């Protein structure tokens, strides 16, 4: 039998980053039992934490990079272990030693040099909005519309950003766009253990917002929402952040958002992890969907806090995952069970992941994915 000796210094190092709560884990296995990975392959978060508790080598195995930070385990952990923090702390240590999966080097490199993970030019950050005549944020503007890098550079998601602009304009929201100097919110970077890089991105953004006197930020990605709301606290970001689904649901209630055009569609809504489990926003998107005449909203079996992750969070979007191990495929199948023609998501990662899953499983004829704004924009009379 392999003989091991605990290595308290390593435990200490993990705790130092953000993993203090790993010490109180009682190894009950609830996390493993709930972890979506076990729908496709063996993965035990508990075991990872156990190794971390003992400071043992082995956690640097590939398993460490599995976690998609979906929060399912954290939400139900009986001891209140911040498992995601533990994971990112362990990843941070890997980062320090430079031992990260090859597929992550590109995105992290791009983040460091260009402020986005997609290798896009800074100068092209707001190119997607060309022709939409959106003003730049300035004094008197109420909201800064902060698009996710994915929406800025990924052609599929650019469509969603453009749809959002249309909807916001229809409601008369006073908003403006940001600047070339804007950087990625840094959510994925931090979850991948890029602690230093995250701080650089965050500080740059906070400085920029302060310079431009930005008070309220409207985000289109739940990941940005989460980063601004929670992670930026440590960089002293006193920002008011709102996800577009929440703002639009408010406008709907006030009668400012009018969804008059009937769409005869059966849709199902997928709760993004970072909107739902991380930030407790479940109902506003549903409220919006239900308000569209003609639209029938059906629920998947796993919905709200039980939603199945698309696999894109925590850097998952860049990981090379074998085709048979993609949650997005399971999720698309679950959506199909409901008989829906459209799967609505409110997160750019989910849109990308589902777009891919629908294509690769040959469902393009029967089903499509729409970002919430895209669905809403179709229901607005021109």
């Amino acid at each position, binding site marked *: 039998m392999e003989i091991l000796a605990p290595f308290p210094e390593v435990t200490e190092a993990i705790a130092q980053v953000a993993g203090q709560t790993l010490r109180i884990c*009682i*190894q*009950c*296995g*609830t*996390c*493993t*039992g*709930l972890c979506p990975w*076990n729908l496709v392959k*063996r993965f*035990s978060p*508990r*075991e990872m934490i156990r190794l971390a508790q003992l400071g043992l080598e082995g956690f640097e195995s590939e398993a460490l990079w599995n976690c998609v930070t979906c929060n399912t385990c954290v939400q*139900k*952990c*009986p*001891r*209140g272990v911040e498992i995601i923090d533990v994971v990112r702390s362990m990843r941070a240590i890997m980062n320090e030693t430079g031992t990260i999966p090859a597929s992550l080097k590109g995105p992290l490199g791009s983040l460091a040099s260009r402020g986005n993970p997609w290798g896009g030019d800074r100068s092209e950050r707001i190119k997607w909005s060309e022709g939409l005549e959106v003003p730049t944020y300035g004094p008197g503007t109420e909201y800064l519309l902060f698009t996710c890098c994915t929406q800025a550079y990924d052609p599929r998601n650019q469509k969603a950003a453009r749809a959002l602009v249309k909807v916001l304009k229809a409601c008369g929201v006073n908003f403006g766009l940001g600047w070339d100097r804007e950087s990625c919110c840094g959510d994925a970077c931090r979850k991948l253990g890029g602690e230093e890089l995250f701080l650089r991105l965050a500080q740059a953004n906070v400085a920029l917002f302060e310079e431009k006197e930005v008070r309220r930020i409207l985000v289109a990605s739940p990941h940005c929402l989460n980063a601004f709301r929670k992670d930026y606290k440590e960089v002293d970001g006193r920002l008011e952040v709102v996800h577009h689904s929440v703002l639009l649901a408010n406008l709907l209630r006030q009668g400012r958002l009018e969804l008059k055009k009937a769409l005869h569609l059966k849709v199902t809504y997928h709760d993004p992890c970072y909107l739902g489990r991380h930030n407790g926003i479940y109902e506003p998107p549903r409220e919006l969907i239900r308000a569209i005449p003609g639209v029938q909203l059906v629920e998947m*079996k796993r919905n709200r*806090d*039980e939603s199945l992750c698309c696999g894109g969070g925590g850097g998952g979007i860049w990981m090379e995952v074998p085709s048979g191990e993609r949650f997005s495929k399971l999720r698309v199948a679950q959506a199909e069970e409901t008989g829906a023609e459209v799967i609505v998501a409110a997160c750019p990662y989910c849109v990308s992941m589902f777009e891919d899953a629908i294509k690769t499983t040959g469902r393009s004829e029967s089903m499509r994915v729409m970002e919430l704004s895209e669905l809403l924009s179709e229901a607005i009379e021109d």
Partner: protein
Amino acid sequence: MGERIGVYICHCGTNIAGKVRVSEVRDYVATLKDVVVARDYLFMCSDPGQELIEKDIPEHRLTRVVVASCSPRMHEITFRGAVKRGGLNPFRSFHMVCIREHCSWVTQDEDEATAKAKDLIRAAVNRVRFHKPLETVEYPVNPNVLIVGGGIAGMQAALDVAKAGYKAYLVERQPTIGGHMLQFDKTFPTLDCASCIGTPKMVSVAQSPNIELLTYSEVEEVSGFIGNYRVRVRKKARYVKPECTGCGECSNVCPIARPNEWDERLGQRKAIYRSFPQAVPVTFVIEKKDRGPCVQACPAGTNVQGYVALIGQGKNQEALRLIMEKLPLPGTLGRICPAPCEKVCRRGDLDEPLAIRELKRYAADQVDWENLPVPAIEPKKQRVAIVGSGPAGLSAAYFLALEGYRVTIFEALPVAGGMLRVGIPDYRLPPEVLEREIGYLRRLGVEIKLDSPIGAGHTLDDLFEEGYQAVYLATGAHRSAKLGIPGEETTGVIPATSFLKEVNLGSRPQIGPEVVVIGGGNVAVDAARSAMRLGASSVSILYRRTRAEMPAYPEEIEAAIEEGVRLEFLVAPVEVIAQDGKVKGLRCVRMELGEPDATGRRRPVPIPGSEFQVKADTVISAIGQVPDTRFLEGIKGLQVSGRGTVVVDPVTYETTKKGVFAGGDLVTGPATAVEAVAAGREAAISIHRYLRGLDLREGRPSKPSGQNWSEVSPEIPRRPRAKAITLPPDKRKDFSEVNLGLPREDASAEAQRCVSCGVCSECMECVSVCKAKAIDHKMEDEVVELEVGSIIVATGYDLMDPTPMTQFGYGKYPNVFTSLEFERLNNATGPTGGKILMRDQNGAFTRPPESVAILHCIGSRDVNYHEYCSRVCCMYALKFAHLIKDKLGHETQVYNFYIDLRCFGKGYEEFLKRVQDEGVMMIRGKAARVTDEALDDSEKGKLIVVAEDTLLGKLLRVPVDMVILCAAMEKRKDAEQVARTFGISIGRDGFFLEEHPKLEPVSTATSGVFIAGACQGPKDIPDTVAQAKAAASEALALSSYGRVSVSPTIAEIDPYICVGCQVCRGLCAYSAIEFDETRNVSVVNEAVCKGCGSCAAHCPSGAAKVKHFTDKQLFAEIDGLLERLRFGEAA
């Protein structure tokens, strides 16, 4: 005289002296003002150490002593004793300083520790000179003990108190004692049957002469203090007297089923019930809430819930008997009542209101009226005359006849029944129905004189001369109101009342082919539908408002439309157009709705220039009726109002003329039949009182009120309201009845839709079967006052509801049970008679499971619910595993999903071994979820428990038939309120807090109040019993010593400074401050005060202070602590 202070510094071996340079401190202390003796010693707490003080006091004429040693929580009492033995007051002359726990043990540096010790002692020397002499006070103790909670802890404590020869009051909230333990089947690890060891305790409690048992009772208020508590207990009305023999006949006949709490709602019990067969006391109890809204809404006060429940049981005759307690015309009202009961029916919150009127009619129609038994009535001599045989008159006659009076009804028409007979068409109310009910009245001895008008020829006054001692006037409202338009007198314009009267009396009034009815009430619709039946080719109703405002019943309007009647809304007639003295048509005007009027309906306003003509051969005006009081002209003393109604007292219905009463439409103007019936009954009550010379107002039965009704569970399956069979429209050519009533099978099903708002329906079936005559539906709560010296609170725990933990599917899957539910499944007195059975989707028990998963730590050891361990789950989970194997056989698979196994007690580990040996599968890993989503055929139809086997590091999916959740033990839902009542503190886990976690396990913040059992924290039966015995021993110590001393460090209020603002009284948590009105000052009740100082810290003038913690003393201590500081140099 100057102070002479002695200071004693303890080395505590090396504990203090190892860090604090004791001799240096001693030398320093000796320099302080008034210090005449300064010593250090190895162990001050030792006998020689104490003797040092005792000797020095006289020798050095010491006035005060300071000891610097360990924490005063350790030895303050020791040294107080020494000082006292030395001849000084232990409070005035002593102060203690902690230089061990707070100094030598926690300070790294020797210099710093020494300096800190000097500061602390200097402060003490400074303080002690201001101490005042204090003496402890003693009070007598009432030896009686109150025990709250009749579970195993409460029973044990009561038995122990009783055994010692003192009186114990045992108060239990539920109808039986026993508590959770008696719900269990077996007890771990010995597997004694809970009942076998529990019921003898219950019986002993009941039989002990020293125990007074108050079940179904709650403590409302506690006042007083240790040794002298006064307790107010509410004994809730049980509605069954102690004469109850427990035979259970009542329960058999009770029509109301409720979820059985004792069985954790797995099964049902009746509204009159006993928790379980061995309950103590054996007396049954009735669950009764406020009378249902239907009962309250019925003008006649009919016991709607009661007769509905009886119909649900097929007891139609009993139902009719109940109806007729308040209502003599059930078949009639069952057809035409506006049914205000249905409008408030709470079944409507769920789906649709109950079809109450149809049910009443159904009951009335099922009975053979010819042979309906007539009650034995003792006849009286007095005669009562009733004028008018409408619903009011018949009702008064009925109730008076039941009292034995000789009643004669004078009816002007050739038929009896008033408007019921001549106002309502036969297709709605067949005359046979009315006749059979009037026939029953005749059988009761009521005489009806037809064609006998009272008026000019035969006056009211004549009646008295003829020997009638009281008269009831109920002639109704038969005159049609005038349209008030030109041409109204033209031939062919008929008042609706005359028209309907003619039709109902069998003649065929002449009407033209084109009939127009004016009005929107039931009379208008009746007239229109009758006209249709008389062969009119076209009938239309003109109404000046819209359909929404029509007062006619919706179903009547609907039927009229079905039959071809046309409705014209927002139209009003302005003139009758005549030709040759006969009606030719109507000139009308269109209306629109304006502002709401006094009745809340929008007032119709004519649209100028919108006039038009309507063709008509006959115009029937149905815009209302008024009473006809011409028959009373010339009667002295009888007042008639300006509206043409008879003036009566609103409560007694007595007119302004002595002996004359009136009611119905004659008094109110046109109203409903049921209101008339109610009025008739009230008049009958008045007349009955009048004839006996009683006060008419006092002692009348009051109307039921209140809204404390049973909960309408949203889980009740939705079912639509039953519909009566009706004659198809094309068959409605003559006057035969249209509504044919409910079919038999629908009626009882409809009745069973009742949600039993009042729980007990007061159907009185139980009373009729109780041989012991033990049932008293009129029983009321009783409040008793007890005087006791101490109180033991043993209120137990609640099991956590696991519904919010959605991942375990409780409440979603029928075969996920809580541990307590499983106990009941196992228990021979439980819903399955002790068989472990699965449930189907409807909750019905089916077959035994082939595999069972037991999930530990559900809500315990979970920061999202309860951080603590519930301590008993591991063991009862093992017990369950054993019982399943035992009852269902070895082939039944049992899985235990655990995090850690805590088998710490005597015989517990051995039990674990035994259960393992029996083949129970132990899985180390907390279950993450329970799902019915099958991945393959082996999982189909099963509940799948998903968990990581943390020992293997592999994920398990275990398909089972049944899941048991070991839910956490948690504090009682009302623990905070109970804590407030008894002055107990609550810990962060929500359970009651003991005074000290180790050394005072059953005492509380309030002296004389003790706690025992699971109300203090989760624990098993042995620990509970041990704690109960401990609490009893604490209480008995008080009882047997008979006196109690109270700490003297309590508050006092200086009456010369107090200005009487009383703010301190509001701040006192113990209500220990009273106000002396004569001196205008607040006064501390020394027996109640605990010395917390809430008052003193607020009192701006310093009138309130706590002895031994005065401003002067604290200031001196602060000054002493900070004396060595130097100002100006620190910066």
